[in-house]
């Protein structure tokens, strides 16, 4: 596409950011020409989000300069950069929870034009809401929006600034293909009014279909840069980022070293379900999320729960953990009703959780995070369990003394899984463990799950990524709007047209 001559819209030179000893961003330089869409890719923990922070002004660079629209903005705080036209979204959405969706946008308008006519401001906001597909939610409190819509709100809020430059941080993460397509159309349509866009993305389709140029970051350093096609084609890029299997559909099932220990009786599948839900309704305050869920997990079985964002998968997981009390219905473990029990008592029954968003304890070291989950266990046994987890995830052993949150996203996810195992549970609930991870990392995690399955562990896998879930599950439930829309064994569900209808096309 034709980019007008003159100096670039954004030019960053030699950006450096250190956290204590760790160098998160190391001598990164980049340019965004007017009318250009630049993609930034790289494995988790490569320092992509840090870079966005440096460009948006949320973080102060230790060295380097940022030129925007012909002016040096290196010293300017976030607010001032925003006023000059840099709009930024957060990877984990941060809407103003106490305000309505429209007010979220109005905040941007009014901060920019305090004395604009109210009618104009409202008009501008509603226009943005319309094109981001939030028009119907304009007057809802942001608190009530599910994750997907919050991500949209992020984009909408940034657009309300009518920025010259838009920084999009993982807006595609966790979307199903249908939604990804929408997103791509949205981003493309933005080119008209935004002079430049920087996209950080794992969903390769977005990158491939939106960006002219790509910048690859690894360990905070510039690894490669060039036209999208060339970069994606290059083998060393594939090596660091995609892994060998990432691009092609389903990951292979490589044999992993140590088979996991499992509470004995789980090995011989009995008929009595280990976990059973009967007509469970639940929600937050007034918002109903689960509308009558029936589901059973037999010992040794692996059950997958699929569904688009906002279908209620995570709420289901929280109900199982006891974090949310069902308003109606029953939860039974070994036929015993545990409805309304506090979380720690449910955990004591051998139901472990690998929570969405990892929930690693920052004040605790990696090892302490693991030890925490093993309740009242004699030292010898504790050491043995630790060893088992370390053999499954050697990365953790190296970093056992580090703070849990100091590791990369993938490693933190490993820690979360390991932590669930430490309880020597009879059933583990895996909630969205692949969310926002690079394909290579996902592969490793799912290999670990596969190993567990072979060892006879009972698992309930709540997943976004259909392929991976179908590959591992015996029994599959697909949720839609708080109900189970479709159930059956993996094979049956895979071929079921209704699934196709839910997820158009395959994950890339």
């Amino acid at each position, binding site marked *: 596409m034709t980019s007008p001559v003159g100096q670039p819209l954004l030019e960053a030179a030699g950006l450096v950011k250190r956290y204590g000893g760790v160098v998160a961003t190391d001598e990164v330089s980049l340019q965004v020409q007017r009318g250009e869409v630049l993609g930034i890719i790289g494995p988790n923990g490569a320092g992509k989000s840090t870079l966005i922070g440096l460009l948006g002004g949320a973080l102060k660079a230790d060295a380097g300069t940022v030129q925007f629209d012909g002016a040096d903005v290196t010293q300017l705080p976030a607010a001032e950069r*925003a006023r000059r036209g840099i*709009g930024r979204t957060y990877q984990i959405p941060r*809407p103003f929870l*106490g*305000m309505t969706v429209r*007010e979220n946008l109005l*905040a941007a308008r009014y901060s920019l034009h305090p004395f604009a006519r109210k009618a104009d401001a409202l008009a501008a906001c509603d226009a943005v809401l319309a094109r981001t597909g939030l028009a119907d939610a304009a007057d809802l409190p942001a608190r009530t929006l599910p994750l997907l819509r919050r991500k949209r709100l992020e984009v909408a809020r940034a657009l309300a600034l009518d920025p010259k430059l838009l920084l999009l941080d993982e807006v595609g993460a966790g979307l199903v293909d249908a939604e990804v397509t929408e997103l791509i159309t949205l981003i493309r349509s933005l080119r008209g009014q935004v002079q430049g866009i920087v996209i950080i993305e794992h969903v390769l389709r977005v990158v491939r279909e939106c960006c002219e140029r790509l910048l690859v970051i690894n360990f905070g350093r510039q690894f490669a840069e060039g036209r999208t096609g060339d970069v994606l084609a290059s083998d060393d890029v594939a090596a660091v980022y995609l892994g060998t299997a990432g691009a092609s559909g389903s990951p292979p099932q490589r044999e992993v070293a140590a088979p996991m220990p499992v509470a004995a009786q789980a090995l011989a599948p009995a008929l009595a379900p280990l976990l059973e839900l009967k007509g469970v309704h639940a929600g937050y305050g007034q918002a109903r999320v689960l509308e009558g869920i029936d589901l059973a997990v037999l010992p040794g079985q692996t059950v997958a729960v699929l569904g688009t964002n906002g279908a209620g998968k995570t709420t289901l997981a929280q109900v199982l953990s006891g974090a949310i009390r069902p308003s109606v219905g029953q939860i039974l473990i070994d036929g015993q009703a545990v409805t309304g029990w506090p979380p720690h008592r449910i955990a004591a029954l051998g139901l472990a959780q690998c929570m969405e968003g990892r929930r690693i304890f920052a004040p605790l070291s990696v090892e302490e995070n693991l030890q925490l989950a093993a309740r009242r266990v004699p030292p010898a046994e504790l050491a043995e369990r630790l060893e088992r987890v370390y053999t499954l995830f050697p990365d953790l052993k190296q970093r056992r003394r580090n703070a849990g949150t100091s590791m990369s996203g993938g490693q933190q996810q490993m820690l979360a899984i390991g932590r669930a195992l430490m309880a020597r549970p009879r059933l583990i609930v895996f909630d969205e463990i692949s969310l926002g991870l690079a394909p290579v990392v996902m592969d490793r995690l799912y290999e670990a799950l596969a190993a567990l399955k072979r060892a006879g562990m009972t698992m309930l896998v709540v997943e976004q990524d259909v392929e991976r879930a179908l590959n591992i599950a015996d029994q599959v439930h697909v949720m839609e709007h708080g109900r189970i829309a479709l159930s059956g064994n993996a094979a049956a569900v895979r071929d079921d047209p209704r699934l196709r209808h839910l997820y158009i096309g395959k994950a890339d």
Partner: protein
Amino acid sequence: MSDYALELGFRLLLLISLAEAWNLLAGYGGLVSLGTASFFGVGAYALVGLANQLGVPPALAVPVAGLAAAALAALMSRPLFRLRGLYFTVGTLALAEALRLFMINNTAFGGATGLFLAGDAPSLQSLFLMALALLAVTTLVMALATRSRFSILLRAVRDDEDAAAQIGVRAFRIKLLALVVASWLTGMAGALQALKLGAVEPYGTFGVQWTVAVLSIVVIGGQGLRAGPVLGAVFLVALSELLADWPALHLALNGLILIVVIRFAPQGLAGLPSALAQRRGRR
């Protein structure tokens, strides 16, 4: 109206205004402050100064004295706003305490003896009317602050300061404005009280009891609810009046009732009707 009613009315109006000002900071700005006493005290001292040194008439002296408190707020804003959440709360408490100790030790403002209003204090009648005016101003300010576009910016900062900055909100200025306005109101309340007492001294005007009164009012009345401060103030004044006739138990009962109300009316008195309605709904 009997003098007694006027006396009670004055106290009510004063406390309501204080609670509203606090609510502006905490409810809409997310700035939970324990520093009410410091701005109240500065207002009180400023009034005495204005009246004694410059002979400013009360009606004018009160708003001007309020400005002194506002100035203090502006002065302290830099260090205070570096603090977030709990740290801000404790910081404001420390500020109030530091000011009190300063006023006690510094003889320039009469030390612990304090200062006395030269002229006679105005009649209870006119004091009441002034308090009424103060409440009117407060209500007006609150209406502006809660319905205007300013409130949108303020709430944005409250909900997520960083995210607000990312969309161009100059958080510092917004918070500053809120703090200054709230302090102005608080300062005027202090000035009125000084006018009524005809005397100011550190323990009485900079004492933590004012901060505590405001907090109790808001918690008892119900936070973030329009009618909250009013109900809370009425409750508190009524309580202290009705219990005052058993001086021995007075405070202990006061504390006990405080505990009970907080325990069984979590949304405060103003939230009680809806809370009950909900409970009925559940059955």
